[in-house]
């Protein structure tokens, strides 16, 4: 299964590629007054209004700042996901598109099912689904559906 990796500070994260609609540059957020801190704001994606979560703040790490390298991952909503998936999608999947603001995008990797390991107990987080070892690095596989619960 293919995963798209990205960086959060020095942490490597990844999401299944079929859950991603597109990846765009972060230029300008429209702030939402009164929204929780971890929401960077809204962006206008060709007519669609997408809420973007600051992944750093969401995971209790340093805030992701807008930079030349930072990107926004736009995830498919439940309808779009259902179209490409044969199995029923995770019921937690957001009904609308959600964005994740990350520090930098990484390469796409291919991971076999047997390479997926459970998340160590000391790192547990509802957002984390599995971990994978690659080149002596840990890559944490995220579950995008859980992102909504962050707010």
């Amino acid at each position, binding site marked *: 299964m293919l995963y798209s990796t990205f960086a959060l500070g020095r942490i490597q994260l990844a999401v299944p590629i079929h859950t991603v609609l597109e990846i765009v540059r972060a230029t300008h957020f429209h702030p939402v007054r009164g929204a929780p801190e971890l929401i960077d704001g809204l962006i206008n994606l060709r007519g669609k209004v997408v809420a973007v979560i600051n992944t750093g703040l969401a995971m209790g790490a340093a805030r992701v700042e807008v930079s030349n390298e930072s990107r926004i991952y736009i995830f498919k909503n439940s309808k779009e996901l259902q179209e490409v998936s044969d199995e029923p999608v995770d019921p937690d999947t957001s009904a609308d598109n*959600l964005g994740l603001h990350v520090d930098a995008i990484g390469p796409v990797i291919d991971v076999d099912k047997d390479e997926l390991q459970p998340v160590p107990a000391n790192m547990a987080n509802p957002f984390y689904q599995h971990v994978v070892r690659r080149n002596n690095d840990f890559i944490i596989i995220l579950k995008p559906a859980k992102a909504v619960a962050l707010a």
Partner: protein
Amino acid sequence: MSQEEVFRNFMTEMGDRLAEFEQGLAELEQNFRMDTVHQLFRAIHTIKGGAGFFELGNITRLSHQLEDLLMKIREEDLAFDPAMVPVLFEAADVLRDMHESSDHGKGLDIDELCLALKFKPGHKPATSAPIQKPVVKTESANPETQPQRKTAMDTRQVDAQGAPETSRAAQAHTGRSAPMLSAVPAGQRPPTPKTEVSPQSAIESGVGARHETIRVKVDLLDRLMELTGEIVVARNQLLRQLDDGGQTLALSSMAHMISDLQQVVLQTRMQPVGGTFTKFNRIVRDLSRQLEKPIRLLIRGDETELDRSIIEALSDPLTHLIRNCADHGVERSDARVALGKEATATIRLEARNEGGQVAITVEDDGRGIDTAKVRAKALANGLIHAGQAAEMSDNEIANLIFHPGLSTAEEVTDLSGRGVGMDVVKSTIEKLGGVIELETRVGSGTRVSIYLPTTLTIMSSLIVRIGEDRFAVPHSELSEVIVVRPGDELQIERIREQEVYRLRGQLIPILTLQRIAGNGLSSNLQLDEECRFLVLKAGVTTFGLVIDEIDHTEEIVIKPLPQILKKMTFYAGSSILGDSDVAMVLSANGICHSQNLHLQDLQAGKAAGRSVSDLQLLDLQEKQDLLVFRYGTDEQFAVPLSLVFKVEIIERQQIETIANRDFINLEGRNILLVYLDEHLALKPLPEDLERLYIFTTKINKFEVAVVASSIEESIHTRLNLDSPPMNESVVLGVTKLHGKLTFLLDLFSLAEKVSPDIFRGKVFSETPTKNRLLVVDDTPFFRDLEKKYFESVGFQVTLAFNGQDALDLLTAKPRAFDLVVTDIVMPVMDGYDLLKNIRNHPQLAHIPVIALTSFAQEENLDKAKSAGFFSYALKTNKETILDAVSPFVLEG
């Protein structure tokens, strides 16, 4: 198309025809028209045809009987008899049941019904042998496919005998009564109306002309709406871009067409609510029968249109509300008659358009909500505490029934109180972006009002700037825009941490976005600066929202909030503006709820039991015109401008001294000069000050000039005097003007001091006989001042701090007062209302009332006189006050 699909289509069709049939019957019940019969015939004919094709035996048979009967009436072989109506309804009910049951009434025994439908000439409509309602088998059916309308069927097993007395009472109201199965006693056949089809009535067929319709999948319509929305936005963007280059003309016809397209597409989703409303006729009839209370349902405004999804969602809540009316609201007919009400209760269901919203009301003329019980229950459940229980008005208490966990229904009847409570009704309405409110009067009835937005997505909105962001406010929620500038008459005031503004007599709360969005931080609204706010309306609640500036108007597509932000109910959604910027759309309803602004009536007067100190906080002082001047470098003084005659500059050398007094010669007259340092502990003006200012005032027809070192300004302001006036002093009080301590001078006292002989205040030649005076004024300073004036000339003065207080004193001791002198602008009860109350009170009507005010314009005088005040005086002018009062007190 599969056989299944064809069958499904027929079922839908049958459902529609049945609804038409039922509606037609309801019309027939009220008013016989051959046209209606034709309609009924057509509907049944269609049903029969399809049922026959699908071999639905019993449905075919029953519809055939109905068709037969209708044909006979049509051909005038059989005269129409209102007694037929109950049986027809019966048949319609059974048809419906068969339509819904899984075996389509296969095993049903409808022999008796069919027989009854034959209505052989001379055949007595069933009286002694009431029709046994066939029990519709539902147990045999697959439990999962239980028809939804279980309740209607539950009420079916009614003892056909009915309640005789209500039946007779019902008969008294021709055509409107709840039809009873034990129908018209034999022999009572009302004259059969001959077919009175006149050309006109033939044209206007009662039950809405048959629309040309076509079935379209809802998904398609949704997609159409979406695309249209996007086109609108794209058009706006394009217009913006071209506008900069001045080329919009090329696009104008297309732009107009897109607007038209938008309107039409919006209408595809709009349906008249009447479609949903008709079924309530039947529901009320059933309820009426089951509860043995005659009830009639009046429907109005069924042509009002609403988005179809809203209509669907309204069905359940409205059903619940109507059931509540019938079950809890309406009394038994004997109880009603005993109360002087009509035996038949009326439930009114009305829909109307109200400025961008649709208002739907369900109203009954029953017993109203027992607010005492609700209050007690709410207290017992800890919903409110004792303080609130005392303060809340009856309507506010009644609205508590929308709160989950407050059920006062003593027994959970079969019909309501089944856990589908008012709280569910409320949340359903709110989910649709609507508001629900309730008004009740014990003994008279209850009215529930629902306000809904007419369209869901595209709204014409005002784009405003608050802080660094732009927000959209739909025009439908926007009432007006108000700018308050520092010099204005009405200002934003603060009461107990809440800013308010008096908008045409009603106090509305003024909110800031910071407060709404920022987790209840108190706003940092500066009261004396220029302030701009929008007046927004949500249902009946009005409030103000502070903005920085207005940007422009735009038609926007409101996109629902991303799921992750759903909790922020004060936003209706987001939108993309013409310039591609994102703007949050504010929701008046949402703001109200997040701030708990419900039917709160902030008008201090309406709340019972507010403490006196609270009322004084709401001290609505009128504004005074003051002349501000300085005497020396430090001290600043003010006098009411109304007393100032002239302001002049003089040179010290112009002053003439005669017999130890200084005079100045102005226009040939010698005017006495008054130096303040001779009467107050002040430093005299420096000798070398060559140029001096004077202002003259006329007291008792004598002019006197007060010397000042400089005239600062004339200012229109509220007087917030701090220390009470000291007796025997010329200073009325101290206030702060532009941050500087300013002494307010009492020119009358000053004049008296200067020249007691000339300026002795008007003294009545003898102590007035009728000298018991009630002085009413909300401003402590004025109360004391007026008291001082009146006591100095021999009156006995009692003080009241507002109209209500005065009225209380008067009614307690009607003979204790000879005259009332009152301020006009006061909280709780103003001068005009006080006057009205005095005039209307038999024991008080003889007491003359004089009005005191700060304004001197002629129109105020006329207004006061025509309201019934005997006369009218200026507060700060002792002379006019005493003049006004003297006519009364000198008579023997």
